[in-house]
């Protein structure tokens, strides 16, 4: 099964290259548009069932980019074969603007879109706007399909899409997500092997490893992370805080919104970040994730114990270090409450309240989330199309199938079972991340003491929550 699928994908890629230049070039293949990947995969695809009874037009809005709109465009030719009477349009806006643009459309109760792909971090806000639809009734007629989905997508990740209450009480199914991501350790295996270091398991080991491999004289800085003085630094802090057993609030699930940032776990987290900063790339304090990845690609940074990263790092056309970058679990603290807790995020598909053609829209969402299950009306090529277009997956089985060629997927496989949501599931999450991030950056850059930064982060978080009426 494994060999056959990989063979199918390789053949598709070769066919694309052949069509274009007559000469197979891996570089050329990687540049191929997602639609061409999908078309090539669909060329020999004969679906077991054709749903000619389902029809209509659906418009799917997604952010531009390989992981998002491109993945959808790659799957579309396969979907077109299974649902020949459905007209599917995939439309997109720039990644950097799309998340807020979606909220604008939803705030305006726009009926322009039937399916939308959105970042999980925005779902609490969407819920507050009344923009989400419970997919439960649409899933119900397909128990076998859903059982397979539940078995394959790790529970912690799957429950994240149950809004409004987040992971513990299930809430309702607001979205299904074939895409997934998690914060992981990124490390240069060649450098670690040369130094005789294993991938750090605890944060103190991470600091030691950074100290060992730091080589600023040759512009090879040990550590790099998105520590810009905004929500990026907030993510770094939150990721470490969770691994020490801390959180932003006393009990989010049960509605105790007392901020708990000023705590022993908070102190340990800031201590680690401050220690790591000694071995940081000079730009790290102002970096977002795209600059971090660029620095990794250029070989000027060698290690990040906590980053979102990108699967593109393993693309041979992207970096000369593509074979050296490997991914693993993020470290944990060394107290009894500590554990590996990888912050997770991703993009899920929801049906906006004001959209139309619900049954058909759900048929498309279900198809996208079918992974390898041809026998369940999906296609074994769906995952291949997504990966071929540059996407990354949430289904464990498809991650396994690609693990031998995608180190990024190995990291995801390890991270999903221990993942936690990347931010509190409330509309105020971004504002809090931003406020805490500013305090964290000030402490790490020695503008404030650790104690003062934690105290102020607590105070600012409480004020945001007060202003939103959480304590009334």
């Amino acid at each position, binding site marked *: 099964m494994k060999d056959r699928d990989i063979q199918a994908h390789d053949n598709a890629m070769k066919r694309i290259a052949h069509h274009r230049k007559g000469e197979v070039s891996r570089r050329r293949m990687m*540049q191929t548009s997602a639609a061409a990947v999908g078309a090539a995969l669909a060329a020999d695809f004969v679906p077991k069932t054709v749903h000619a009874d389902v029809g209509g037009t659906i418009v799917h809005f997604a952010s531009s*980019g390989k992981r998002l709109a*491109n993945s959808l465009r790659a799957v579309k030719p396969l979907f077109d074969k299974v649902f020949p009477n459905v007209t599917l349009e995939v439309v997109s*806006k720039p990644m950097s*603007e799309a998340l807020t*643009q979606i909220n*604008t459309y939803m705030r305006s109760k726009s009926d322009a879109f039937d399916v939308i792909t959105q970042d999980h971090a925005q779902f609490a806000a969407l819920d507050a706007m009344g923009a989400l639809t419970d997919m439960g009734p649409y899933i119900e007629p397909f128990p076998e399909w859903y059982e397979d989905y539940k078995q394959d997508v790790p529970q912690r990740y799957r429950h994240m899409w149950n809004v409004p209450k987040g992971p513990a009480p299930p809430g309702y199914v607001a979205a299904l997500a074939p895409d997934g991501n998690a914060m992981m350790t990124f490390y240069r295996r060649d450098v670690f092997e040369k130094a005789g270091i294993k991938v750090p398991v605890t944060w103190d080991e991470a600091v030691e490893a950074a100290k060992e491999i730091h080589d600023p004289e040759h512009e090879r800085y040990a550590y790099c992370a998105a520590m810009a003085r905004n929500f990026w630094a907030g993510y770094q802090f939150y990721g470490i805080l969770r691994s020490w057993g801390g959180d932003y609030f006393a009990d989010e699930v049960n509605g105790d919104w007392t901020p708990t940032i000023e705590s022993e776990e908070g102190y340990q987290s800031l201590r680690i970040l401050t220690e790591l900063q000694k071995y940081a790339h000079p730009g790290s304090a102002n970096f977002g994730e795209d600059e971090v990845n660029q620095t990794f690609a*250029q070989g000027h940074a060698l290690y990040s114990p906590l980053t979102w990263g*990108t699967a593109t790092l393993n693309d041979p056309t*992207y970096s000369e270090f593509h074979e050296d970058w490997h991914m693993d679990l993020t470290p944990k603290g060394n107290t009894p409450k500590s554990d590996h807790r990888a912050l997770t995020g991703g993009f899920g598909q929801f049906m906006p309240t004001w959209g139309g053609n619900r049954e058909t829209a759900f048929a498309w969402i279900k198809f996208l989330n079918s992974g390898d299950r041809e026998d369940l009306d999906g296609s074994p090529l769906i995952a291949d199309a997504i990966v071929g277009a540059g996407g990354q997956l949430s289904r464990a089985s498809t991650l396994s199938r690609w693990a031998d060629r995608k180190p990024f997927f190995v990291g995801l496989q390890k991270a999903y079972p221990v993942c936690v949501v990347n931010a509190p599931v409330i509309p105020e999450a971004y504002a809090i991340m931003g406020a805490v991030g500013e305090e964290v950056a000030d402490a790490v850059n020695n503008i404030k003491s650790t104690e003062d930064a934690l105290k102020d982060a607590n105070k600012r978080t409480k004020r945001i929550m007060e202003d939103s009426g959480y304590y009334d």
Partner: protein
Amino acid sequence: MHQTSLGRLINVLAIIVVALWLIPVAWVALTSIKPTKIINAPEPTFYSFTPTDEHYIEIFDRFMFHRAMINSLVTVGVSTLIVMILALPAAYAVARMGLMGGDIWALSILSLRFMPGVVVVLPYFKMANGFGLIDSQLALIIVYTAFGLPFAVWILRSFLLDLPKEVEEAGRLDGLSWMQIIFRLILPMARPGIAVTAIFTFVFSWNEYLFSLFLTYDKATTMPVALQKTIDLYNVLWGSLSAGAVIQLLPMILVVFLLQQHIARGLALGAVK
């Protein structure tokens, strides 16, 4: 001799300044033909690489830049034409027809341009949504016309004020109507000013991002928004971004070259005071 040395020095300084201005443009052009691996290499290079067309292929293939180009040309071209047709009589009225409080009128018109786009973009979005104009070229043409007109009137007015009144008076004595005076007498004299105004109007709309972002999502998307799509999640596609930037720059360079005589005269005559 002294004059010549000073002249040479000024020339050298001018070349240095121009070179400094051109370095980023040259770097963007170079990046557009570098393989991605070279763009991400540990050491930047100016010349030691084999040029590639992969980013130009990608920008058209994956980012549908050809469609964005057509949209830009149509929306910006049509709106510039409408602006110029409306701006000339309006500017003439404000400059020459002795309107009561002519300066206040002129300032009031210009004040519309003071308003930041972000203040009105949401109302525009709501209106376009209500009229079913989202993702249509028409929505952008309307907005670009509305935003381009005040500035065009203002700069044309200042240019018209510099034209000799005697010609118009002679025309009036010969029995020409206002419109005949504008189109038969003023228009030929005002060509440099009109060219400069048209270029400014065209450039503002050509580079416009905010309204295009809000009012389009696919079929009517213009080049600046399409260019932004090369910024992927956690990863900037520098090669494609540079290729797109070069393509977006080319029509501007072409227009400026074609109209350079008019621009020089227009600027010298004070069209953009």
